[in-house]
């Protein structure tokens, strides 16, 4: 559902700008209602603000939503625009750039993170949907200096070249074993196929996952 909504918005943005009338867009509606509400609540201040064309600023202030979640064990309290994806919040606001943007449409897997232990495509997930949840990114996988076995196995088997898809591959790989989808090579290939590696490190990634699975990561 989230995917189709997001794609539709993008489609509007890139395909048919001429059909978008700013006067009746949802955003302007929100802006107007926000200002109206604000006027009702605090007429004097807001009327003054409107006079000084501060309407946009007010609407911006009213269009963010408070949200709190844990990222890599650290509680974050943020005021976010509802349209911000978890991916963009991680990268642009929390400076956790280990999570990568490869397509923004959930087609490449580079943005894979764990939410409450499950693998999630952070580009298809709005940040405000994660109230109270626990998010783990690649930066939170190692225990201090000690790498997670999957990280070690990726280095050992050279499961990457450029390294850009690697955080997503590793987050997916850890979840793949936890889901019980790493019992044989074909399973691993199938259940890792949402993570694209253009450098073509696939056979080495499969070896890394097998090693970690056989080394005892529980499924």
């Amino acid at each position, binding site marked *: 559902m989230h995917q189709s909504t997001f794609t539709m918005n993008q489609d*509007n*943005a*890139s395909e048919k*700008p*001429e059909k*978008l009338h*700013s006067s009746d867009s949802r955003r302007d509606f929100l802006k107007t209602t926000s200002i109206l509400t604000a006027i009702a609540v605090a007429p004097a201040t807001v009327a003054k603000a409107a006079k000084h064309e501060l309407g*946009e*600023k007010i*609407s*911006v202030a009213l269009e963010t939503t408070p949200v709190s979640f844990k990222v890599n064990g650290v509680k974050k309290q943020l005021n976010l*625009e509802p*349209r911000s994806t978890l991916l*963009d919040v991680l*990268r*642009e606001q929390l400076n956790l*750039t*280990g*999570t*990568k*943007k*490869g*397509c*923004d*449409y959930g*087609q490449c897997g580079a943005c894979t993170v764990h939410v409450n232990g499950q693998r999630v495509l952070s580009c298809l997930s709005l940040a405000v949907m994660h109230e109270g949840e626990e998010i783990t*990114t*690649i*930066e939170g996988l*190692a225990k201090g200096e000690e*790498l997670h076995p999957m*990280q070690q196995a*990726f*280095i050992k088997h*050279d499961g*990457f*070249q*450029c*390294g*850009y*898809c*690697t*955080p997503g591959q*590793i987050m997916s790989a850890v979840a793949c074993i936890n889901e019980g989808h790493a019992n044989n090579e074909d399973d*691993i*290939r*199938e259940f*890792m*196929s*949402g*993570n*694209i*590696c*253009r*450098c*073509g*490190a*696939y*056979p080495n990634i*499969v070896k890394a996952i097998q090693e970690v699975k056989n080394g005892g990561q529980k499924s």
Partner: protein
Amino acid sequence: MNEAFFDKKEYKPLDRVDGRLKVTGAAQYSAEYPLPNMAYAVLVGSRIAKGTIKSIDTKAAERAPGVLAVISHMNAIKVPGYQPKGEHPSEPSTNGQPLRVFFDNKIYSNDQPIVAVVAVSLEKAQHGASLVKVQYNKEQHQTDLEANAKAAKLPEAAKKNPKSPTADYDRGQKDAFENSAVKIEAEYVLPTEMHNPMELQAIIAHWEADDKLTVYDKVQGTKMTQKNFAKEWNLPEENVKCITTFVGGAFGNGLHNWPHETAAIIAAKQVKRPVKLVLTREQMFTMVGYRPRTWQKIQMGATQDGKLVAINHESIGQTSTYEEFTESTLQQTRMMYASPNVSTRYRILPLNVATPIWMRGPGEATGAFGLESAMDEMAHVIGMDPIDFRLANYTESDPDKKMPWSTKYMRECYEEGKKRIGWENRKLKPGEVRDGEWLVGYGMGTGTFGANRSSATVHAELNKEGNLIMHCAITDIGPGTGTAMVQIASNATGIPTEKITFHLGSSEFPNAGLQGGSSTVNSVGPAVLSACNALKEQLITMAAAKGNAAFNSAKADDLMFDKNELQLGGKSAKTTLADLFKQNNIEKIETTKESKPDENRTKYSMYAFSMHFAKVHVHPFTGQVRVKKIVCCADAGTIVSPKTAASQMIGGATGGIGMALTEDAVMDHRFGRYVTKDLADYHMPVHADVPDIDVYFVNKPDLLADPVGSKGLGEIAIIGVAPAIANAVFNATGKRIRELPITPDKLI
């Protein structure tokens, strides 16, 4: 240069030196530098393929919250480098130069960047971009290669220089093909393919002062970028800095500076803030190059017993109307086989599309699909094993340049590859082998690419703790440049790899060319060697000056480190680095060394070679092709980093699977627009498409090519893979598919 000491040492598999940074998310790519006060730019592209912009309504975008500027040709600041010298500025020629973004109202291709919306956040810039309304004066565009083939032309470079690799070429008799005993003639088509590295093209442009520009830019050449932007902005080169520490794949699309980079630089100048601009995945299809759709025709003549008589090979590749893009599509046809008569005709066709750029294996990979398919077709007609047919036409010297090879070890590749793929299970007649309900086929294809080398400079310092630290401007797009250089330095000095650091990816570092054309190890490797030897010579001089007589006549090659001890080969003399530095009262020694191609290049023909073997299953009812195994053999000279080199070969084979079976950028010619513009529609191989890939290296040094003995690997890893798979599909089914990709509809 005496290689005695060097040759004794063996290069061992080493984990990537930047592996930890990459698996922890700490590696910093171009969009990942958090500068204060950053603004975000989003590009709006044209919705027509040819014409002019009638009007742009930016009012709504400008009013949108957080939007700082809406920039187009209407209000962009003047870029000094846009003014063509010696021509009237109002009528500039666009043929033969990069697109000038926000320069005028002309549209040359669909999704050409025409507006940049700059805002305080990415979301606000995206929203602002959605509010821009553009009206056009549309003109009739041409985007169809085959429909416009008659307008194809000889490239300007070939017109000016008959020795250009794209010029017409004739060897032997012109009517040799017509008079051949056995003749085949076939046309081959390779569709437009997209590099589609996983990292979106990204730049942060930062004017640190009015005349001082820093870009964190996803490119394959920091010095190229520095030079180009210095020229574009009329600045001294030292005022422009390009930082490219990590590149999330490129495959060639970083070999050119593109309009989005200039757009970000303009935007940063106008809003007076650092500007981050990251392309969307759709824009990766339209703004940063691609492998051009190419049509080829091959006429091949042979004797009944399998001796090539003639090859005529022609090709037409598409380019844009403003820039002539060429590649070496037909080069290997001139030199790969001992055919006495060869003609090549290379043409380009300007269309209303964006400019292509070299994509891995570039033209050679395109040409190899034609040539190696035709070789398979001819072997089939004659009734010969395709390997025997190639061996019957093996050439011991370059028939094109008429020079000896520096090295060529292809026979080893044929033998090893045959063994590993199980070639003995192949039947000459197609469709004879089955595994359950699946048809089984075996095929092979050959690749070659010039063992290129350019000049490169490395700065190296050795400190009293015994750490060797090197700097060079080269970039690394993923093959493992740092790892390879550390291995070369370790082998040359004996210093353990963990005490060696190789810093790359900044125009502030000593000069290096582009990371492209399989030339990095061949070019930068020798500079590393040279710098290491210079350091060793300094140490010998220091030791000798302090009365250590054994060092008096020693040469660099005699000296090796063993832990922190300096040992003279063959002699028992030794000293420690700490003592030496203490005696001389210094903290470190350093050197800067340049290494250049030498005169051997005028005496020998230098190529790297590969041979790929594929085993496929084809389903007789659904036409589904499954690649079951690939064996890659390479004669690439010395393999300095066996682990990363093997990965490079596996990666090339994976790219070849995409070329052969799935990749196809489909254009809707009614609009001149791609319909496959994301990763759900443009199919790159995923885990489930890629089988076990077996890699074999001949690993014999080519010391004529360069002192490291390396011939380059990145291109030959993919060249020849697609025809190997196409030939295997023919062997399985008897169906010859001459237009890639081999999708199921073509087999049923």
